[in-house]
């Protein structure tokens, strides 16, 4: 396994070269917090952060996205016919994505890339992306990635892993895509593999030890769905919820969307926007009937989806990477770690 040693003074120079080959995305401080967005040539990702407020999912799956286009101009032969629209799927590099957010893409892929249907927008964006992960030396108190089958130095879903070793960076090459990016960057100084591996291992262990919050998920798959669904704790779990939807917007593994048409004059687009199971409109029928009309039903849906339905549907663990955003930003302190324990320990 190749590890590159990057003098911090050479970091910017390498990124500068990448602009010739990639669209670059990275964390940028906007107002009081960091978020991912496309960087303009010459701009550097701001790596002085714990994690971004919103997850990195927008780099592949934007909050609002054009799907199709049409004209309403009846003088045109193709009026009212929905058509493909041009999208930019040229290579892009996502710099500074935390390992939790990268792992989240793998979980979400199960939804967008199915044997029957492929979501062309998500998949083309994902395939065009090279993910340069940024290992967490200083995780925060709400992080529980180590027990969510991830970790502060997890390489799952990453092409490269960047490790901040104080006076220099170590860049671990994980995939061919990663190797290609390194070649384009001009960072050449191969580190002594044994020393660098040891250095990374030490930092990794130190970071993992800082993560004390844990969840247990071992018994979820053997629970009966209908029994968990009828469990007595849901009213209490949902009691304080105000259905603001923040948990779903900040979550790297929430993928639900709405589809809407928008027009301006005689031209229009069909677009999709992130949606949320926290909103009553999400499931409201035209007739007025709503299968999830109460907030308890909606809160239950969110946790059941992440911690039971997903587990059963894909047989690949929970739909959560332990980033802790929903815990940090919930205005009423609903904690997925506690709900997970309630579910895992539930006996009907």
């Amino acid at each position: 396994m190749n590890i590159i040693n990057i003098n911090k003074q050479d970091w910017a120079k390498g990124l500068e070269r990448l602009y010739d080959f990639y669209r670059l995305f990275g964390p940028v401080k906007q107002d009081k917090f960091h978020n991912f967005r496309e960087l303009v040539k010459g701009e550097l990702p701001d790596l002085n952060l714990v994690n971004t407020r919103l997850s990195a999912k927008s780099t592949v799956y934007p909050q609002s996205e054009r799907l199709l286009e049409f004209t309403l101009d009846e003088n045109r032969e193709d009026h009212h016919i929905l058509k493909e629209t041009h999208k930019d799927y040229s290579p892009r590099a996502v710099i500074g994505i935390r390992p939790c957010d990268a792992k989240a893409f793998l979980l979400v892929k199960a939804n967008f890339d199915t044997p029957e249907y492929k979501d062309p927008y998500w998949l083309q964006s994902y395939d065009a992306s090279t993910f340069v992960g940024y290992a967490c030396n200083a995780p925060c108190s709400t992080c529980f990635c180590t027990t969510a089958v991830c970790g502060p130095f997890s390489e799952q879903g990453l092409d490269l892993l960047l490790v901040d070793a104080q006076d220099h960076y170590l860049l671990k090459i994980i995939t061919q895509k990663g190797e290609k990016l390194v070649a384009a960057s001009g960072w050449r100084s191969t580190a002594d593999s044994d020393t660098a591996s040891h250095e990374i291992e030490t930092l990794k262990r130190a970071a993992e030890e800082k993560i004390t919050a844990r969840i247990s998920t071992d018994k979820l798959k053997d629970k009966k769905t209908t029994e968990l669904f009828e469990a007595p704790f849901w009213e209490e779990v949902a009691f304080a919820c105000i259905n603001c939807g923040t948990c779903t917007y900040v979550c790297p593994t929430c993928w639900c969307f709405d589809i809407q048409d928008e027009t301006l004059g005689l031209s229009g687009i069909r677009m999709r926007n992130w949606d949320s199971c926290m909103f009553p409109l999400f499931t409201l029928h035209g007739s007025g009937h709503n299968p999830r009309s109460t907030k308890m039903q909606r809160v239950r849906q969110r946790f059941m989806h992440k911690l039971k339905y997903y587990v059963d549907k894909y047989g690949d663990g929970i739909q959560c990477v332990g980033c802790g955003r929903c815990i940090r930003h919930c205005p009423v302190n609903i904690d997925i770690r506690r709900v997970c324990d309630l579910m895992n320990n539930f006996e009907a």
Partner: protein
Amino acid sequence: MQNPYLPYPVRIEEIITETEDKNLKTFKLVFLNLDDQEKFTYTPGQFAGLSVAGKGEIPIGIASSPTEKGFLMFTINKVGLVTSHIHAMKAGDIMGVRGPLGNWYPWEVMEGKNVVIIGGGFAFTTLRSSIIYILDPDNRPKFKDIHVIYGARTPGMLLYRDELARWEKRDDIHMHITVDGTDDPDWKYHIGFVPTITDQQAPPGNEETFAIICGPPIMIKFTQPVLDDLGYVHDNIIMSLEMRMKCGIGICGRCNIGKEYVCKDGPVFTLSQLNNMPKEY
């Protein structure tokens, strides 16, 4: 990469107002491109996304049968933004059809069996597709006795009245048409709710008999115990569900019941399957 969000362009060929309240209209659609028509191969019980550029897309059951060639038929209740707009459209207008979507009634499993079709209100659309399909000379020998129990509020609210009258005259299908009430002294069919008529007219249940139910939740709720009493096996009670949908392909996340997406894993489920799913529909 095949784009599953892209509808096929179609032209409205004919519009038929079905019911006395004028709230239900049938739209006969023809494909602009023959290639698209070839690709759109469907089975009774499936639905499609109907698109109006600038307004949006809605999921609607396919009312035509694959044995009827050259067009698709949808019967649409005027409810919201898109359906209201469609109701105001005219023959010749262009719209889009995406699909076919979802699963279908289990025709292969039902071969050699009795089939009882139970429908209420405007949910009769995919059941019309099914009846046309079964009565096709190539298909009719594959099934034993066929019963249809169909109810609406009034005689004028029944869909496909000309066809109902034709089926009524045949001897290879037992029609049991009913209305909740009528002041028509010449009404010669049943009066009563669907569950009651099912109790009186449906053949007894056994391994050889299937019931397909499609209707408003209240009708389903009260018909189910009747079928239980008649001895219907839960594996043989087939239901079609409705949900608010967007993508129609199991991706956008809203139409789930437990881990199943009604748009992709359904809309057709057996009662046995539903018994093991959360009651959230």
